[in-house]
């Protein structure tokens, strides 16, 4: 297939999923509200000790992002599976991995990107300095697509299973750990004024690896689940 045809397919799939997300806005907002509420609960529970808050901020924000991202995974393939459109997608003459890339991109745009954009506002509750806020945004911007990509494999594997929600957390959360360590680590380093470059390189390496392998693994998992 030529690259122009591939782009057209990517675009068609992306518009479809974004259109569906707009028509069901409440589903999208749930993830965002979950993230906002979880992050906001900690300052309320811990109290106004600024030093403590600053120290826990990176971890709290990142763990909340992980959980929010996982919460949204159920919607990635389930609806297409339930109404039969997933079968049709598998039977189109397009490479399935390509369709997966566009589905995950659309999913990240509606569930991941809003988290990235609201994060600086939430960071203010933790008295993070301006530099650290920027680092937080950048780390989430690089990390949340990895979460969506890894999550897609889990979502595809648990498709149509009873109790898939619990199973997916067991499958996916351990794989999220490296992203969590370096994502939260880079913000930590930023707060203490250390060099953040190494962390960012690692995060981008995760992103490249996930982009290269996750669509293929997800496509294979979908073929198994649909049987």
């Amino acid at each position: 297939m030529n690259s122009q045809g591939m782009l057209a397919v990517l675009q068609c799939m992306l518009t479809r999923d974004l259109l569906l997300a707009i028509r069901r806005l409440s589903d999208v907002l749930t993830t965002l509200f979950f993230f906002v509420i979880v992050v906001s609960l900690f300052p309320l529970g811990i109290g106004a000790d600024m030093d403590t808050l600053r120290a826990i901020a990176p971890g709290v924000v990142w763990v909340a992002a992980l959980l929010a991202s996982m919460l949204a995974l159920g919607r990635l393939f389930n609806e297409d599976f339930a109404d039969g459109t997933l079968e049709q997608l598998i039977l189109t003459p397009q490479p399935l991995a390509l369709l997966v890339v566009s589905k995950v991109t659309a999913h990240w745009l509606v569930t991941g990107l809003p988290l990235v954009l609201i994060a600086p506002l939430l960071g203010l509750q933790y008295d993070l300095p301006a530099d650290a806020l920027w680092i937080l945004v950048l780390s989430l911007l690089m990390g949340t697509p990895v979460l969506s990509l890894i999550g897609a494999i889990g979502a595809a594997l648990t498709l149509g299973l009873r109790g898939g929600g619990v199973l997916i957390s067991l499958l996916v959360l351990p794989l999220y750990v490296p992203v969590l360590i370096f994502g939260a680590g880079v913000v930590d380093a930023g707060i203490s004024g250390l060099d953040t470059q190494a962390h960012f390189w690692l995060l981008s390496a995760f992103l490249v690896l996930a982009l290269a392998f996750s669509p293929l693994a997800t496509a294979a998992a979908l073929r198994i689940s649909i049987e």
Partner: protein
Amino acid sequence: MLEATNLEAVRGDRQLFTGLSFSLQRGELLFVNGPNGAGKSTLLRMLCGLVIPANGEVLWNGSGIRTLGEDFHKDLFFLGHLCAIKAELTGLENLRIASALSGQATTEKNVLAALDRMGLRGFEDLPAKVLSQGQKQRVSLARLLLSTANLWILDEPFTALDKASVELLKSIFSGHLAKQGIIVLTTHQDVAIDAATVKQIKLGP
């Protein structure tokens, strides 16, 4: 040409069918009959490549469908027992997106004409969730009119359709067969379709 050699299907511990072989030439129609649970849908999904046979192979023009992969999908139109209609999208959007993803160049005019022929004029801008089951099925079947695929595999296409739609669908099928197309379908209703060659397979006891 579609060819199945020595197919075997197993669901859990139960063997649905075994040693099933047949071949279909261009212009031929195959009815798959059998009681509920005999493996009709499984056979159809196997012919599409959605289910991998426990034994045997499905060949399209002499090559295995799994090796052909996306090249086989170009020639294939499949309608499962689910409508494959997005409830939040309108009939028009559903059709346009489905055709674009199947790699068919369609214009809005063609899509509207297809919906019109299926008797859905005036319903094209309504979200599919407000349509009745029969209307959804007709939106799904309108894809047939836009499809350039040679092999049609249809699981219970007559479900939920009214008499007029059944007649329309029968004429669409005859037209496809006359154009050297191949159709494999299951149905519990007695429908006679004009075709040069009609083959039958009976699954189950």
